[in-house]
């Protein structure tokens, strides 16, 4: 029997040489006359160990990593293809503490299956949610999602079931399901990992959404920086169409759902839902006024479900196991699990899916292993470039939407970026303003002008020009952006700016006690 060897095709694994490792394993196996079956899986999300090579054995999958091309001959010498000992051997993958302590619901298959194999997907409980949904009414599907307590994982945390119910009850000749895969937040990569590692779960989630509200067409709006995700998604969609999981007659039910991937073009603001819809319609990504909500007048003026990748990818397990199963994870009004992405200056960066309630400190130290540089972690930014910076004194906060809101912070899309004590927080505040200026769509004045003025004011503060007056001005400007902007880009840029100022006043030339100024 040939040895089954797994080498990830995930972008991050490829960025560390997984492509070359796979090629060298194939060549070396051929040279030695060893029969192997090479599977290109998604990543397990333990990125300090990538490229992580796994081998199927009778006892389970055994991991080796990080493997470089030059390690491959030695691995064959050690008989790694049958689980032989080698200095890179990590033992049974499932027993690795980083993985074992997680609660993987949405990411249940990522890293395990061949992402473009529909048979693999089916063998690992795939499409069970859809099978059940086909026997339910739209209202019953929506009720299941509502009961699960799922809230939008893109960042706004709006209850998914309520959004779906609005679309369900909006009469129209055509409705749409749009997936927001314009994952532009720094420090986030869970959408990418799902799309590259288990695309069928997203396709299934969107199909169920279509059945729920009577939408027959779906679009995945995918950022242009993700060419590998594009290839995997298109491969999976083709496979689903061939086997009638997508198309005019889904599994003989007479129900229709067509799905297409559309490439974005590098505008951060298009992650905002109305701007995304404009872009899908072929226009500049300019934010729309709300109301009307996209659920009433969305894509091409029709009722539209627009959800983040992780929200939609969490739907299949909710339909398969029931809303109550999902709701049993989590705390307070934050139900289920959150795929957390550890990034920046951490020793063990990776994907950690946990029920809500885990604390920042556990994530940063028990999982992240502290800083990569070995210096103290001074600040973490949670929730992307519009998320607040949190100081060490707030690290015991549990990951919960309401607990973060109480600190004037956000969970966003679950990205956590750590900085060590070499960070200059005034510079980070300036960067937040600069990023807003670069990415502003220009429709509303507080964002368009405010961000540019914000960079200028930050420069004056950094250069010690009338510091006290300019800090007062920065607060005033932030207040205007916060309350006067049309969308979250201008409206939330003050989060990183003011949190940096409030928690790290010494970086702005103030004494700690002056922070109320």
């Amino acid at each position, binding site marked *: 029997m040939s040895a089954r060897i797994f080498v990830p095709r995930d*972008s*991050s694994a*490829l*960025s*560390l040489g997984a492509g070359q490792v796979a090629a060298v394993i194939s060549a070396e196996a051929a040279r030695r006359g060893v029969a192997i079956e090479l599977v290109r899986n998604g990543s397990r*999300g333990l*990125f300090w160990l*990538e490229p992580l090579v796994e081998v199927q054995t009778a006892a389970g999958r055994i991991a080796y990593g990080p493997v470089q091309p030059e390690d491959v001959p030695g691995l064959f010498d050690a008989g790694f293809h049958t689980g032989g000992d080698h200095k890179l051997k990590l033992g049974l993958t499932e027993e690795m503490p980083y993985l074992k302590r997680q609660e993987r619901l949405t990411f249940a298959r990522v890293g395990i299956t061949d992402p473009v194999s529909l048979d693999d997907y089916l063998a690992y409980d795939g499409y069970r949610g859809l099978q059940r949904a086909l026997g339910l009414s739209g209202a019953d599907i929506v009720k299941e999602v509502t009961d699960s307590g799922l809230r939008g994982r893109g960042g706004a945390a709006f209850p998914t079931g309520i959004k779906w119910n609005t679309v369900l009850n909006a009469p129209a000749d055509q409705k749409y399901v749009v997936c927001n895969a314009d*994952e*532009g*937040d*720094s*420090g*986030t*990569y869970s*959408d*990418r990992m799902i799309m590259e590692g288990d695309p069928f779960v997203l396709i299934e989630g969107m199909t169920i959404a279509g059945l729920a509200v009577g939408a027959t067409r779906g679009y995945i709006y995918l*950022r*242009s*920086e*993700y*060419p590998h995700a594009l290839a995997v998604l298109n491969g999976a969609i083709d496979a689903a169409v061939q086997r009638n999981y997508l198309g005019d007659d889904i599994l003989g039910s007479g129900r229709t759902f067509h799905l297409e991937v*559309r*490439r*974005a*073009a*590098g*505008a*951060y603001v298009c992650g905002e839902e109305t701007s995304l819809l404009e*872009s*899908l*319609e*072929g*226009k*500049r*990504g300019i934010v729309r006024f709300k109301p009307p909500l996209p659920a009433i007048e969305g894509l*091409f003026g029709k009722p539209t479900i627009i959800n983040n990748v992780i929200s939609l990818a969490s739907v299949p397990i909710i339909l398969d196991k029931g809303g109550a199963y999902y709701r049993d994870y989590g705390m307070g009004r934050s139900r289920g699990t959150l795929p957390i*992405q*550890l*990034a*920046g*200056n951490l020793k063990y*960066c*990776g*994907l950690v899916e946990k029920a809500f309630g885990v604390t920042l400190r556990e994530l940063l130290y028990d999982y992240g292993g502290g800083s*990569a540089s070995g210096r103290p972690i001074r600040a973490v*930014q949670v929730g992307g*470039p519009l998320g607040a910076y949190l100081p060490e004194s707030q690290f015991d906060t549990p990951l919960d939407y309401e607990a973060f809101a109480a600190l004037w912070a956000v969970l966003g899309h679950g*990205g956590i*970026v*750590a*900085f*060590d004590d070499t*960070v200059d927080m005034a510079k*980070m505040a300036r*960067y937040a303003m600069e*990023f807003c200026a*670069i*990415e502003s*769509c220009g429709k509303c004045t507080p964002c368009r002008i405010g961000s540019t003025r914000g960079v200028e004011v930050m420069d004056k503060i950094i250069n010690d020009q009338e510091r006290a007056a300019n800090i007062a001005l920065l607060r005033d400007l932030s207040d205007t952006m916060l309350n006067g902007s049309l969308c979250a880009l201008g409206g939330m840029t003050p989060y990183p700016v003011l949190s940096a100022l409030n928690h790290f006043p010494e970086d702005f030339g103030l004494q700690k006690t002056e922070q109320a100024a």
Partner: protein
Amino acid sequence: MTLQDRTRTLIDQAISSHKDKPGALLPVLHSIQDSVGHIPPESVADIAEALNLSRAEVHGVITFYHHFRQTPPGRHTLQICQAESCQAMGSEALTAHAKSLLGVDFHQTTGDQAISLEPVYCLGNCACSPAVMLDDDVYGRVSNDKLESLIADCRKEIA
């Protein structure tokens, strides 16, 4: 007509294969940029005509999105991530090193037309910061040495 015949053919193909899609403009522009390398300003009138848009609308879309470019890029495009996670792992120094190695600033192309240098705000490789993208390939934990070898490989092809 200032466009070469081959470019003209590629543009016509891009327009005809996407123009009937709903919201066709971005797919058309992507298709042109993928095959031609940029979106020649001379093509705007044709795109506008085919999609029943004004030239101003097409120009507005091309210039709104960072991804679209109206001038030919170098043979390779090097994007260096400027976002927070990469900043936390030294992207600022890496960027300075790239600029001095190449002798160009962002949005410029080296004199030998080998490399265009661009900023990018997140490649989704934040677990392996700092990250760069060379054409369609992402590289993680990029050191100055790694960057030098990537750049050297780009230049070796024609040396």
